[in-house]
């Protein structure tokens, strides 16, 4: 379970997150909806261990993030633009990341690439990928190995309909015993996917 208590983050004198109190429990898909700059990504950065909050705390399974651990254990994420090594193929990029998770990552890589519709044997280098392919690889990296916490920030932007359907299906399949948080500004997308949606306005989170 992820528990966020009185979390605030400010840059200079501007608060980008104000006194946020939320709970995310396994078995649910959470949606964060808000306009650009509302604070969705900032919260996700804080939860993933990328941005230390100014005040408040984040508890993950009773352990405090930034105090008891640097990053949540067993996390998969896609925040903002996907970033991989340009002269590696999709498979090679995931093999590097997968090697930190298991000694023989071949199976989990192929499965993740299959979900997003990328060919594991494709020799095309990442730098030659289209925007949609880059996004797919970002999603594949996030769900590879089926981590306990999956965080996706605007994951559907560049996906075609077929891929979108497959990814939706996979996210729904993965939600059992996992925490999945998806930030998206598209109401229709989020309504069809999330079990619970929070509306984000000026760094504050409200129930839909």
């Amino acid at each position, binding site marked *: 379970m992820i528990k966020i208590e009185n979390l605030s983050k400010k840059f200079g004198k501007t608060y980008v997150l104000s006194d946020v109190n939320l709970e995310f429990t396994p078995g649910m898909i959470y949606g964060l909806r808000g306009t650009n700059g509302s604070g969705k990504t900032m919260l996700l950065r804080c939860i993933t261990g990328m941005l230390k909050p100014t005040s408040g705390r984040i508890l993950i399974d009773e352990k405090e993030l930034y105090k008891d651990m640097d990053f949540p254990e067993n996390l998969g994420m896609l925040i903002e633009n996907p970033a*991989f090594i340009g002269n590696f193929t999709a498979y090679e990029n995931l093999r590097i990341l997968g090697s930190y998770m298991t000694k023989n990552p071949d199976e989990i890589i192929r499965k993740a690439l299959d979900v997003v519709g990328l060919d594991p044997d494709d020799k095309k280098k990442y730098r030659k990928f289209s925007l949609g392919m880059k996004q797919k690889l970002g999603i594949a990296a996030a769900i590879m190995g089926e981590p306990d916490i999956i965080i996706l920030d605007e994951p559907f932007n560049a996906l075609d309909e077929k891929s979108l359907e497959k990814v939706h299906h996979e996210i729904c399949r993965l939600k059992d015993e996992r925490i999945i948080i998806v930030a998206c500004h598209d109401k229709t997308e989020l309504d069809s996917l999330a079990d619970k949606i929070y509306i984000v306005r000026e760094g504050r989170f409200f129930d839909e």
Partner: protein
Amino acid sequence: MGTVLKNEFQKLLRYKGIYIALIIGTLIVLGDIYYYYSEIYVRFWEYYNMGYEKNIGMLQPPVLMESWIGHNLSSVYSEMFYVLLPFIAVLPFGVTYYEEIKSGYMKNVVIRVSRRKYVLAKYIVTFVSGGFVCMFPTLLSAWIASLYLPNIPLNPTAMVSNVSNMSFLSEIFYSKPLLYILIYSFIAFLFGGIFATMSIGISHLCDNRFFVYFFPFLLSICTEYIFNSTSLMQYTPNIVVDPNQRVFIEDKHIFTTLLVMFAISVLSCIPQGHKKNLV
């Protein structure tokens, strides 16, 4: 740690930087060899054949050490190599840490493996690759020279070297030239490695890729400029790494300079291994 290191070495071999650095090094060596062959080797035998053989004992015959890039005194290529050494060292892997932070790729890694291990692996691979591309031309030059020149020690009375009998490794220089070449090639490896890793330390402090590339080079030039006007001239990295020993160098100058540079390189990388905001 083994997996992180293996992955970083795999990345190194796929980057163009290491091949560009090796090509630059090879071109400088070929230029140097051509210069020595056409300007010194051929002319020596011309003089010899013109009837100067009676006075040939007064001249230094062409030998491996004289042609070697580390000791080809009159060659601009030799000087160019040692001036460019900090830049060549950065080319293979020095800028990848900066690129992985800026692109966001680092986030993918640090959620899966300890950031300290990642930075340590980067440090090791950057050091080894930077050192290798600086050592390679010195060995290549010695090898090419050995194909047509004998490995005979230089004649100390011929006055063709800056190395005096009090200089660093002077005994080896005048008795076992090949060993002198190997030791100075290793010194080039160490300096190349240290220069390359300095780019890791600077990666968090600047926002320009080209600055990361040129930082060690600029540091080296600035140090030379500042130290040359003080009593610290013998501690200038550019001078210490050069086997020509342009100024009088002793063991303490080499070891102190290496130690200080290594300390700066390591200390500047340590904060990178600690927790910091990644965005």
